[in-house]
């Protein structure tokens, strides 16, 4: 599978008047490699009170955390709250971070929890990370039609974005979050399990269902009969 690539847009580094701990370079696209070797060093310096080290971590991950918040909550204000809370809580609780996972994984866990809380407030009793008794549909082997080589090119970028936002928003949160962590953020199966507090087989099962459900929902837009 071609790994998920994230386009890198250059943002100016915001600094808070403190000498930088390390020279900054743009984040790498893959989550598996996004955590650079100096992350542990930055965390350690931040724990010792070097706020510029924490700033560097923020500059490095803010776009990814905002995107994750947007993708889970589907709402800009909620995504902003998620991002702010994730960074403020991680800073406030840095002493509790033991380094048994990557800082980025820990940060994502906080952000996911914040995002799910937003969803629960919006839809009480409807957002749970437990398996649903039934999701009311079986996406396997429905609507089997070829899409052609590059079906997404049939749409303008804004139209495509609307389609993707709509179909991901229709997924049950328990499937949506797993898909976002694994396939969009590129986080490993084991780390996704750790972040969500579920087993590795549960991640695999939810990822399969998420992928199949998205495939089925995109089918009506991308099948050859619609796009030719």
């Amino acid at each position, binding site marked *: *599978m071609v790994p998920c690539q994230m386009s890198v847009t250059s943002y100016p580094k915001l600094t*808070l008047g403190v000498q930088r701990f390390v020279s900054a370079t743009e984040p790498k696209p893959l989550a598996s490699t996004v955590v650079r070797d100096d992350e542990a060093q930055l965390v350690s310096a931040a724990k010792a009170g070097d706020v510029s080290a924490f700033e560097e971590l923020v500059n490095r991950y803010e776009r990814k955390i905002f995107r994750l918040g*947007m*993708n889970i909550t589907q709402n800009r204000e909620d995504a902003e709250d998620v991002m702010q809370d994730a960074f403020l809580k991680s*800073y*406030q609780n840095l002493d509790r971070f033991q380094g048994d996972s990557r800082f980025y994984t820990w940060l994502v866990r906080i952000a996911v929890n914040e995002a799910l809380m937003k969803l629960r407030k919006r839809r009480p009793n409807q957002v749970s990370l437990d398996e649903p008794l039934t999701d009311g549909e079986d996406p396997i082997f429905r609507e089997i039609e070829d899409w052609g080589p590059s079906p997404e090119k049939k749409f303008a970028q804004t139209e495509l974005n609307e389609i*993707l936002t709509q179909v991901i928003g229709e997924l049950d949160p328990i499937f949506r979050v797993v898909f976002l962590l694994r396939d969009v953020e590129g986080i490993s199966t084991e780390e996704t399990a750790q972040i969500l507090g579920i087993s590795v087989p549960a991640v695999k099962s939810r990822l399969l269902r998420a*992928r199949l459900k998205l495939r089925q929902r995109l089918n009506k837009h991308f099948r050859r009969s619609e796009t030719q």
Partner: protein
Amino acid sequence: MNCKKVILELTSYLDGVLESGVRIDLEEHLARCTDCRIVVDTTRKTIQIFCNSEPVPLPDDVRTRLHTALLDRFRRNSKTT
């Protein structure tokens, strides 16, 4: 291998972590089953389309508010320590 087994192994296959013997069985099935081939191909494209989609931009005002909130927290912390 039958169609049901292909679906069960689909995630591992697309992630490239399927054990080689199972992968060969699966690919032999794909060579003769059009439906499975389409499901595998369109599922792979589903992932690629999301991966290649335009990233959500971080608006400047949102970013500025984040850094202002952090600065405020840094200052409060420095006063209490």
